[in-house]
């Protein structure tokens, strides 16, 4: 069979060519991640091939994994587009004995050395809490991602769930925007026409939705700085520099920083260890996070996804401040 000994692939104990995939490149977040990959690989002493972009097509991701494997990489950092639609790719890697670290999305099954991410559900819940803190009752809009994507689905579900549980007086309205700026802007626009009394907006991707949301609020004369009694509470996910700037300017209340740098860094970190043949156990790590066994055999290094508000926006540890 084609199944080689993992040790053989590991070669000289944690060095050699490694590959990394990208799910898409047209979002500021993934663009930043893409920038960090070679940098972090170097830090770990790994030689990363240029990243390959699946361009939102799960089949392409599988092909990408195959292509990287056939180029003889000794380790892979994979960014699944979907928790399930990556398993076939993981199997290929397993057959070749190449260790894999999954970033951002935890695969449903298959062999991965480690999952590195901050939970998508946590983004929704944290955003819900940030809004709940500021809006006790009334209408809140969530500008959703693509419901056919795992990120959009998990964030939407977590936000809905959290609002229902913890803030029953808040009514959630929804805009399905499929990660598209124009859909967000026009959808919000229509909604605001019918509901000028909206108190808050949750944007599932600040990188895509922040500008269109502000633009829609401006058009409806609902755009007021934080602190103004008429201010519409705005909370987003991502933590790109523009969001941090908006927080400093008093436009945005909070964002949940999705650590692009840490994704790249710990992706490479665990990969190097796995290539050296190390195995891991649940428990605390050396970088303020914990490893959890999320499902049998799948370990996840749950990186902190800090909520950024006016109070900590200048924190140098935030990746958005380091670009």
């Amino acid at each position, binding site marked *: 069979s084609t199944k080689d000994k993992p040790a053989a692939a590991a070669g000289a104990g944690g060095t050699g060519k490694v590959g990394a995939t990208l799910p898409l490149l047209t979002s500021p977040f993934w663009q930043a991640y893409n920038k960090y990959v070679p940098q972090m690989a170097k830090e770990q002493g790994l030689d990363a091939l240029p990243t390959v972009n699946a361009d939102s097509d799960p089949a392409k991701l599988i092909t990408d994994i195959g292509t990287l494997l056939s180029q003889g990489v000794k380790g892979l950092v994979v960014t699944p587009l979907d928790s399930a639609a990556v398993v076939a790719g993981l199997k290929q890697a397993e057959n070749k004995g190449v260790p894999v670290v999954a970033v951002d999305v935890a695969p449903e099954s298959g062999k991965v050395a480690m999952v590195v991410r901050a939970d998508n559900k946590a983004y929704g819940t944290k955003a819900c809490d940030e809004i709940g803190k500021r809006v006790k009752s009334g209408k809140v809009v969530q500008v959703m991602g693509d419901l056919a994507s795992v990120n959009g689905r998990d964030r939407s579900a977590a936000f809905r769930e959290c609002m229902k549980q913890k803030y029953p007086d808040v009514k959630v309205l929804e805009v399905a925007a499929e990660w598209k*700026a124009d859909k967000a802007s026009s*959808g919000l*626009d229509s909604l605001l026409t*019918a509901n000028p009394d909206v108190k808050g907006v949750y944007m599932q991707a600040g*990188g895509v939705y922040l500008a269109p949301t502000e633009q829609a609020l401006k058009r409806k004369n609902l755009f007021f700085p934080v602190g103004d009694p008429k201010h519409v509470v705005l909370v987003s996910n991502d933590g790109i520099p523009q969001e941090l700037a908006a927080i400093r300017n008093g436009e945005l209340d909070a964002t949940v920083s999705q650590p692009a740098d840490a994704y790249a860094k710990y992706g490479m970190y665990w990969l190097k260890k796995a290539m050296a043949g190390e195995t891991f156990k649940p428990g605390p790590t050396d970088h303020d996070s914990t490893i959890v066994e999320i499902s049998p055999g799948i370990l996840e290094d749950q990186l902190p996804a800090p909520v950024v508000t006016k109070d900590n926006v200048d924190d140098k540890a935030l990746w958005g401040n380091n670009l």
Partner: protein
Amino acid sequence: MTDLMSDPQTALPAVRAKRRKSAWLRELALLPALVVVFVIGGLISDTFFTFDNIISILSAAAALSLVVLGESLVLLTGKFDLSLESTMGIAPAIGAMLVIPAASSGFGTQWPSVLGLVAIPLVGALIGFVNGFLIVKLKLNAFIVTLAMLTVLRGTQIGTTNGKTLFDQLDAFTALATTTFAGLPMSVWLAAVLFVVFGLGLRYHRVGRSLYAIGGNREAARAAGIRVDRISWAVFVVAGVLAAIGGLAYTGYVGALGADQGDGLILQVFAAAVIGGVSLDGGRGTLVGALTGVLLLQSVDSLLRIAQVPAEWLKAIYGGIILIALIISRYAGGKPQT
């Protein structure tokens, strides 16, 4: 000339008038569907049929309608241009990058805003020129050339911006959609003016008429002394310019310039044009029709959002309504759609 034998029917002006009216009706075949949408909208929600919401529908439609205008012209000549969706992104991106500082992901040239704005339609024109060259001169297939071009342009935009979204110092570039006059954004006024100008041109000007002839039968148009190649080529250039301006309106509407600006919009552009009666075979259709197509798509979207249809089902219902609108307009228009 003997006219003794003229057909009895030709004597009846009433019939003639009727035919003319039915031609008009066909252009406006979508009106009944549009009316239905508005009536339902009015019943479902008090806000749908308000001035505010109409403004909001129009503002949202401005960018799309400019691209639809360009695409309609190309379709009338019997060609295709899929690359307009990428032109929408790359033309304003280049314009903006020439202006904004390198720190905000510009090229570092820091041209004055006015030049950057002027560059936008020029980039659009250049893209159209290249398309026209490949299609009209080298006689490559328009569909597939512009599909490849779509990819090249999108790729170039991602490459030059590194996939970054441009946010900073874009004021000059968002002004088109943020400045208002009589309650409506300038982008809406611009689109309206361009629709009127091009609409009149198509109806009243010889070049406009020749677009129809070219799309209807290239050989006959050529034999009638129309410079078929030159005009087809020019139409690609004009479409590029219109898409570039449409892209600028889009940027203004969303307030930022993403690397995927316009991505996936081309099917919507075709939908609007074709549902509005512009034929994919060329030679048939009007801008009034195309405009009703844009408005129908946009108002259905607005209606569904105001009605807070569950997000999971939004797409299915949207598609279903368009299908029903099509059937209504088929029977209102009376003619098979081709």
